[in-house]
């Protein structure tokens, strides 16, 4: 491939995946600005790679790099003091943050609001599946979970969403 081909390669990838990568990074870090930096880094790294090397697994690779970078950023930002037994007794709730939960309650329901109410791991895989169209296998590689796990998470997430939407419809009637 020549250089123009490579440039095209990168640019087309940008076009195709920019938005979903941004959404994905934002869902991990919770911050759109940081997400932009992360995705920029991802593409810069892509520029360093050979198209042929990533052939067939480009999407997966992009998401992996993006995810790793996002988690690195998350880790740097964390400022919690590790506790001892207190930590155990005040275990983290799997519920979304109260602000999000309040938002969910307050505004009229929207499937995406419901989505944000899901636990983070379900949220992540559902986004990967339905927004970016990754297969179970690919999702499994990106998130480092087993395929069965991924299937289970997606299934549960869909079920919850379905229930929420049903209640919404029922109350709207």
């Amino acid at each position, binding site marked *: 491939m020549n250089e*123009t081909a490579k440039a095209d390669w990168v640019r087309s990838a940008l076009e195709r995946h920019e938005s979903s990568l941004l959404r994905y990074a934002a869902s991990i870090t*919770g911050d759109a600005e940081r997400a932009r930096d992360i*995705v*920029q880094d991802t593409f*810069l790294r892509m520029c360093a790679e050979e*198209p*042929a090397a990533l052939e067939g697994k480009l999407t997966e690779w992009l998401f992996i790099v993006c995810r790793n970078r996002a988690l690195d950023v998350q880790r740097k930002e964390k400022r919690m003091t590790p506790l001892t*037994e207190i930590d155990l*007794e005040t275990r983290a709730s799997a519920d979304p943050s*109260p602000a999000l939960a309040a938002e969910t309650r307050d505004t009229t329901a929207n499937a995406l609001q419901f989505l944000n109410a899901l636990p983070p791991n379900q949220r992540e895989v559902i986004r990967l599946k339905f927004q970016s169209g990754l297969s179970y296998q690919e999702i499994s590689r990106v998130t480092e979970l087993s395929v069965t796990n991924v299937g289970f998470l997606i299934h549960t997430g869909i079920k919850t969403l379905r229930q929420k939407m049903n209640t919404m419809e029922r109350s709207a009637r």
Partner: protein
Amino acid sequence: MKFSPDDPKLTAYVLGELDKTEAAAIEQELKNSAELRQAVDEIRATAEFLKTEFATEEKLSLSAQQKQTIAAELPPTNLIPMPKRKIAVFVSISAIAAAVMFILTWGFRFTSTEPKLATNPSPYKYAQNAEQAKRNELAAQKNAEGEKAPGPAVQPADVHNTAQGQEAVQNSTKLAHDGQLLFEMGKLDQAEGKLREAKKLNADSASAQYYLNLIEERRFRRSTADHELVEKQKIVDVAKEWNEPLGRQTLPSSPPLTQNHKVIPPTTTGNRVIVLDETAGVFPSTGNANPTPSQKAEPSLGLEAGLNSPDSASVAAAAGVSVNGSLASVLPSTKSSDYYGLGAGKQDPNVATASGRSHFGSRTTGDLNGRGEAERLAIRKTGAATTTLGSKNAKEYAFGNRVVQLGDDQRGSIVASTRGFYDDGVEDFEVPVAAGKIPTRSLRQKNYDRSGTARYPQYIENAFESVVNAPLSTVSIDVDTASYANVRRFLSQNQMPPRDAVRVEELINYFTYSYPQPQGSDPFSVNMEVAGCPWNKEHRLVRVGLKGKEMAQDKRPPSNFVFLIDVSGSMSPSERLPLIKQALRMLVKKMTENDRIGIVVYAGNAGVVLESTSCVNKEKILEALDRLEAGGSTNGGDGIEKAYALAEENFIKGGVNRVILATDGDFNVGISDQNALVNLIQKKAKSGVFLSALGVGTDNYKDALMQKLADKGNGNYHYLDTLEEAQKVLIQQMNGTLVTIAKDVKIQIEFNPAQVQSYRLIGYEKRIMEAQDFNNDKKDAGEIGAGHTVTALYEIVPTGVDEEEPRPAVDDLKYQSKPRRITPKTDRREPRSDDSNELLTLKLRFKKPDGDTSKLIEFPLHENGKKFSNASTDFRFATAVAGFGMLLKDSEYRGNIGYDQVRELAEGAKGDDKEGYRSEFINLVKKAKSLDRNRE
């Protein structure tokens, strides 16, 4: 194979993830089961829905500048290598896609974990050309090979100069690169394989080594994370096992003999009364001890223990203790040799005071003059039995439920005490005293509420003081409101509140009064009013009102708060920790970006849950709050240390620095000794960080301790029974509760003996100070928050009213003339000629919140003969509340007031009542009347 509608395979099927055989199996099942079909349909519908929702989601994009940065990395059309940049990645510049140049960069900000492979100088002499030549060579090679996977970089050729070596190097590079990709994909094992091969081919391969290290690191991280999780889970399991059978932690209920009245407010003007309870103070006596009805032997008083004189039994009680528990006046004998001069009394030698400290069940030695002031111990007989003294060197006296030995060296020790549950570890007990009407009825023990382990401090109501003997009334200001909320809680549960739970000043201060805002530079205004007294036609009422300067909500200075939250097991009911969480959430939402909040919790241990975080990150703070759950025992001391440390670390000079303590006070681990806790808080208060104590809870609610902590910690204390109360305290009165505008505020009133005969301060028993404490800046006093109002009511008996002169506790001396009571700082011996109709002069001292010297302001009050019905609305309402308080306490000073009268007064003085608190009060009065059928 049977599938349930809840099988994840169904979803996989819908999404096309199953292989052919599995898909076929499912389709077979679908044919047979309508249930499965429906499930599949729903899944499909949801999936489609999600896809469309995502499609309609607003598209995010990189900024133009970011895109520019990326474009800059792409191969330009010329062949010159890109100039080195900190973030530069060297990209293959040759026409050959396969040739990529890797360069190790240090400052490469993206790939903190994944730098590129190193280049080493080529063996060629002229670097640039050489590289170019090399590239061409490689390109040629690549072209020959055809398009393939990434080619090798320029490798350290100095080591392997042979062609074979070079090929090995190239292969190694290739492998290393593969390894890198695999690593990034998370296939650690495969990556490792490739990298090791790469290393084999080229031992110097820095990149291979680098990635191998990374792999190890990642593996290690994973395994520690797993390990941690396992360990944590183990501990949680154990803790669960442990806590479950114990259920909620409660203190054992108090032993049956805790019927003691304790005494005494911490300081005294000398007119304090000791209260004996009915069973104590009855000491057997021998010989000439005479027939006081108190002949009952009380072995439970433990007299035998610790008394070393054989006729210990002869340690007679303060003679004159009667079975009814009325005052044991231990009065001075007329013989001076019987005086135990522990030092000249600074006050009237007729005043007999002694004080000491005792701890539960133990012997303590201490100066009987606890506070370094010499006080005189005086004993006198009431006319009944005389005391007989025990051992040779020491005299033994019994006060209340304690037996005290006084040695000649003027030190005393408590040698015995009743077993009892002392309210707080520190007690001052007093031998009774001088002038003043000695009430008896109110001190008799009645059916106090002893259920549960709730503990209220026991104060004796202020008596009428004679102006001639005690012209100065010195009080520390107080804005706590907890007692009202507590009373409200009891009444709403259809229970009469325990008498001790009622502190009249807190009832009065619960309400806001419309005193005028301060003018001028002082942070508060002083408003006094005098009018008639509804429960005694001859008396008058003086109302002193302080109003702190209002502060608009948005004018609050930058604030540094630390929430110190009790998350022990006892906090789990919904009106405790969940209420606190909600209340604090409301508070957090009102913060601005100038504020910081940290959260410390304490249970069995204490820990910082959230480091001090700017309120720009409200979500983070709310999240941390949300995660709190109750469990474990209560180690308050540790929590207090950590919270203050956190507050001090983030101290904002000139701003608001406060620890907000939320608990039910049930400390039972660590420093559970109340003294120690109070001392700790006292020390911490010196740091300039204030305290707000929010109490919750019911039966094990430690009102006494909470109130003490707030007092010593330069703070205020509120009881949150409902979310509405939390809203009032934290939101509506946020600036009042959280922003202190003046500290160590004390008032001293000097009554004019020409106008006033005697006076009684209604409430504030816990805040009475010594006269000399007024000018002493070292003495801790109360704090006023922005916009707070503080009201104190005095009932005065004007001169000319024919009241029975209260019998002085100390008779006049026969052989010496009675000196005028000398008060420090004012040398007055004779009343000045009275030129005005001033009733009194109020002096007030206060300090700036961060200051150390106090400022003095003074106001006189003139009599104007105003009738009660002409008094202001606020005056009349405050009076109604005071009357209510006295009724609840069954005070003997309530004159002829009753619930109906209180209600009428309140209704007539309701005023605007925008927030409805006054109406709520009227309802409480009605409720109390119906509950209290014993009283009129």
